Every structure is written in structure tokens, then in C-alpha cells.
């Protein structure tokens, strides 16, 4: 597992973040230090309110840290302007959220093409990549449908294809399965796992879904803004698991 890369894709060094609500200041992250290795599916697990989503937002450049350093793919995110951060995210990152956040007016294919067109890809190249990604998540036959015509699981797969088609080095997923039933959740887990395996993408996933644990290359347990444990899980017992992950 450690053979993939020695350089961490993401690094947090003494990161601190607190929020002020009214007169109360609550610290969400306490001087947190963390390396996320490239090409792995890393899972951050913990109860709600433990700061895992905030950590994801800071590591992905969506939110600045109050103190400490954040490095992503060798770039220091702390010193970047908003525009530079947008450019960094456009070039290197993909996101999958708990809500699917699809435009009601666009077909599955157009949802995936949309960010690609902003990356400066030619129309034909964007179309080809979008089709490939949708086929990879198993939506090849349904790519002309609007979100209203898709099930929840299919919508989440469109959202994954939208992130995947950008061919990002970093893929961030926030509770990707919590709005889905067991079967669809399993499909989404498998896809995320495969993306890390086949594309060498660094996948950082935040979830309290215990089903994900068995599929992760590494599990970080968080509580009260600190990382409590860092371990490699035992291979899952499910028959669906791919054999090279053993």
C-alpha cells in the first residue's frame, strides 16, 4: 500500500480552526497535523460535529485555516488568492457532496460536460471524457436523462462522474453515501474505491458510514477536532471487494 508514493498528496501542519457564534468561540480543529498519501482512499470517520467536514474544507482549499500550514500537491494553499484557489481546484480537484447538486435543466451528460468546458477543453474532447466517465460509473445508457428522471443513487453517480471527468489528482467526498440506501451506497463505495485504485487518484472521504471503513486504505478516526487513531483496516469480508486490495 505504501508503495504508491512516498510524497503525501495533502499535508496539514498544526492546522487550527475556530468558529465564533455570538460571544462563544468554539475551536473545531486543535493544531491538527496530518499527511494524506497519494493514490489511496483515505477515510475520515467520526461523530457529527467532530470537525471532519471542516478539515475536508480546509484541505481542499474551500476554507482558510486560522493557523498552520496546508499543502496540496506541493502547493501552499494558505497564501493563495481566491482566484488562484479557484484555478487550483479547477485543475486538480473533484468534489462529491452529500446532496447531489445537479442542475435540473441539464441532462446527465451536460452536468458532466459543464465543468469540463470551463477547463478549456474542446467540445469534442469534453464530450468524450464525459461519456467515458458516465460509462465508468455505469450510467452509459442513461446519460441523456434529466436529474428528475434519475434515482438518488444514479444522481450521486452523475455527481461522481462530474468530478471524475476532470481527471483530478485529488477527489474529495463528503458523506457521499448518507443520502442513499444500502444497495446504492455500496455501488458508490465501490466506485470511489475503484477510482483510487485505477486512476491513482487521492480520494479523501469524510463519512460516519461504517460500510465505508472496510473499503478504505486508511481510516482516521476523529473526535473533538483531534485525530484519535490512524489505522489500516482489515480487508472487508464482502465478496464484492476487488482482489488487488488485499
Amino acid at each position, binding site marked *: 500500500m505504501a508503495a504508491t508514493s512516498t510524497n503525501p498528496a495533502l499535508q496539514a501542519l498544526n492546522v487550527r480552526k475556530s468558529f465564533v457564534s455570538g460571544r462563544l468561540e468554539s475551536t473545531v480543529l486543535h493544531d491538527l497535523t496530518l499527511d494524506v498519501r497519494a493514490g489511496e482512499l483515505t477515510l475520515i470517520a467520526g461523530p457529527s460535529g467532530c470537525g471532519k467536514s471542516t478539515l475536508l474544507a480546509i484541505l481542499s482549499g474551500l476554507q482558510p485555516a486560522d493557523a498552520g500550514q496546508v499543502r496540496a500537491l506541493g502547493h501552499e494553499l494558505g497564501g493563495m488568492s481566491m482566484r488562484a484557489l479557484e484555478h487550483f481546484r479547477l485543475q486538480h480537484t473533484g468534489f462529491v*457532496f452529500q446532496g447531489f447538486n445537479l442542475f435540473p435543466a441539464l441532462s446527465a451528460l451536460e452536468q458532466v460536460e459543464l465543468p469540463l468546458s470551463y477547463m478549456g477543453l474542446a467540445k469534442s474532447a469534453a464530450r468524450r471524457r464525459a461519456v467515458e466517465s458516465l460509462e465508468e460509473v455505469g450510467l452509459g445508457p442513461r446519460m441523456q436523462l434529466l436529474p428528475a428522471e434519475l434515482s438518488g443513487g444514479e444522481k450521486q453517480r452523475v455527481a461522481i462522474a462530474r468530478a471524475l471527468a476532470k481527471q483530478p489528482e485529488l477527489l474529495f467526498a463528503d458523506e457521499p453515501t448518507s443520502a442513499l440506501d444500502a444497495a446504492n451506497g455500496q455501488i458508490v463505495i465501490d466506485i470511489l474505491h475503484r477510482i483510487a485504485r485505477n486512476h491513482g487518484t487521492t480520494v479523501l472521504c469524510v463519512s460516519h458510514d461504517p460500510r465505508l471503513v472496510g473499503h478504505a486504505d486508511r481510516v482516521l478516526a476523529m473526535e473533538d477536532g483531534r485525530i484519535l487513531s490512524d489505522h489500516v483496516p482489515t480487508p472487508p469480508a464482502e465478496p464484492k471487494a476487488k482482489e488487488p486490495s488485499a
Partner: protein
Amino acid sequence: MVALARKTLVHEWRRFLPAILAVGFASLLQLLQAALVLGIFGSASVYITGSSADLWAGYPGTQSVNLGRPISEDVAMRLRMDPDVTKVEPFRWVDADWRGPRDTGGVSVFVSGIDTSSDAMMFSKALAPALRARLNEPGAVIVDKADLDSLGVNIGDTAAINGQRVRVVGVSSGLRALGGVNIVSSLETARVLDVAPEDAGMMTYFVAKLRDPHKARQIARRLSGSNTFGPYTVWTAKAFARRSQLYWMLDTGAGAGVLFLAGIVFLVGAVITSQTLIAAVIGSIREYATLNALGVGRGALRKVIMEQAFWVGLLGIVCSIVIGIVLLIIARNRSVPMEMHPLTAGACLALSMALAIVSGLAAMRSLRRADPASLLR
């Protein structure tokens, strides 16, 4: 590029409909208001625009056609002496009092005494040669068909103007006046009806035709130079028509009224349109935030909003043009004075588009709520 703005507009047309209607109604109101103002105040200069003269000579400082004072008949000689003038024709204006056969009380009328020959310049565009020929009969007058009721007459009836007997020999259309009723007669009849003693041997206007109408401005300036034939000024037909219209527009306060109403319409339209566009942006705020998370810049997202505003404006304008044309046709058929010039129509439509764009700018501000970090909870 995926046409996000257009596809959303089509897919969520119900959401955008209030904005399209607001722009459409604002645009329609501006158009109709402009058409009415142009139509009503255009009739202040119907004597000029309905005639084919290039130059008008009248009393110095005259602010509107209906305010003419007598000038010496010698002015005609001065005009004829100019080598560029090919034809000169007198025009007598008489403010008079009308008594109809029916019980209409006194009606204030404006008698236009014109040359009745078939190639005369006065009202050449408003009266057909056959109709003008009928004016040669002493005491014959023509009235606008829209004024028959207020004058209480029909064709063939007799009435009295300034105590003199006249007979209605025909009707015209498009000769309605502001502040009174237009009556057309021959120069001879008008002279008889003109009872003011100081008008004897005088004329209200002389109109002239030029060899080259393009030189009108230059010749008008040249002819206005001297006072040897008594006081007079020469205007080009265009300048005198505008002068008359502006006088009425400012004198009645209608100009200020129009601007005030235009401002109100703009404001109300912009409030409705911007609120609708803001609601549309808020409705898709999570999707916009997701695009921003994926690295699509704020500038690009703003462009989507502005594109939507542009399409809303365009659709609204198209609606207003279609309805406006229908209403203009109906108004024409019912003798409602309405008129539209391409430039005015363009200005009204540009104002409506500006309304949509301003609303788009207002809606753009709500994009600030598209914070991708807010999706992570």
C-alpha cells in the same frame, strides 16, 4: 460550452415568467406612452408635416404654429427674389368661434386658409386634389371626421364661424388639432372669416419650396438676415415642426410627466425583475456553489446570471413589440393619435433592456451566498 443559462430558462420558465412579463409590460408601457405623446404632440405640427413646403416664414420668435402673428405680404416678394426658391404660397391662420346647427355651444376653432390649386404645398399630404377643389366655393370648409361630433355637423350642413356662414363640403382624416378644432378653407374664405382689423393686408405665414431641399437650413439663415420687408423669420419646415411640438410638450408639462412615468415604470419593472432573478439564483445556489467548488470561477458564474438577464430582457421586449404593434393598429383604426418612430422605439426598447441588465446586476450580488464550504455539512 453547455448553454446553462438558456437551458435553465427553458426548463424553469415558470420561475422566470414574472421577470419576462415585468420587462414586457415595462417595455409596452414605454412604447405606448411614447407613441401617444408623439401622436398627440405631433398634431401640433400637422400644418407643417402635412404640407410639402421646405421653408416657413412667420413672425419673429413664434414658438408654435398656432401662435402666428400677421406679417407683411411683402415678405412673399423677398422670398420670391431668392434664386433657390421655386414657389411661394401664403397661409392664413384665423382663431375663430364656431356655432354649429346643433346645440354645441361655442367651439374654439383654428381656420387654415390655404391655396386650393391641385399643386399647392399646404396640406398637400393631408387633402386630395378633388377635396381641395371643393373649397373654391365661397364659404366652403373641410373638417376632420373625428371632429364632426364636437362641431355638431355633418357633410353638407351649414354653420357660422365668427358670425359668417360656412358650409361643410367634406371631411379629412389626420387633421386633429391640440386645444381646438381644425377647419380648412380657401384663402379667400379665411380672409372673410378673419374679422381682426389689424390683419387687413397681412398674412400669417408664407411657405416656400426650394430647388434643392437639402440646402434648406442654409437658405433659411440667409433669408432671415434682413428686416427691410418688416419683421419676419424663416425656419426650415423640420425646425418649425419641432419648435411647435416642443412648445406644447413643455407648455403642458407633458414632457416632465412622460419622464416621471418612465422613471416609475423603470423602477417597478426593475424591482420585479431583479426579485425574480434573485429567486432564481437562490433556487440554484447549491448547484452554483458546487460549480465553484469544482473550480468554476465567480466571474464565469456571474456571466451565467447576466446571460439569463439578457434573455429575459429579450423575451420581454419581443412580447412588447408584438402586443405594441397590435395595439398601434387598433389605435390607427380608431383615430387615436399614436405615432412611432424607429429612433423612439429603439430608445424605449434599449431602456427595457437596461432594466433587465440592471436587474441582472442586482441578482448577481446574491451569488455571494454560493459558498462551497456551506455544502460540507
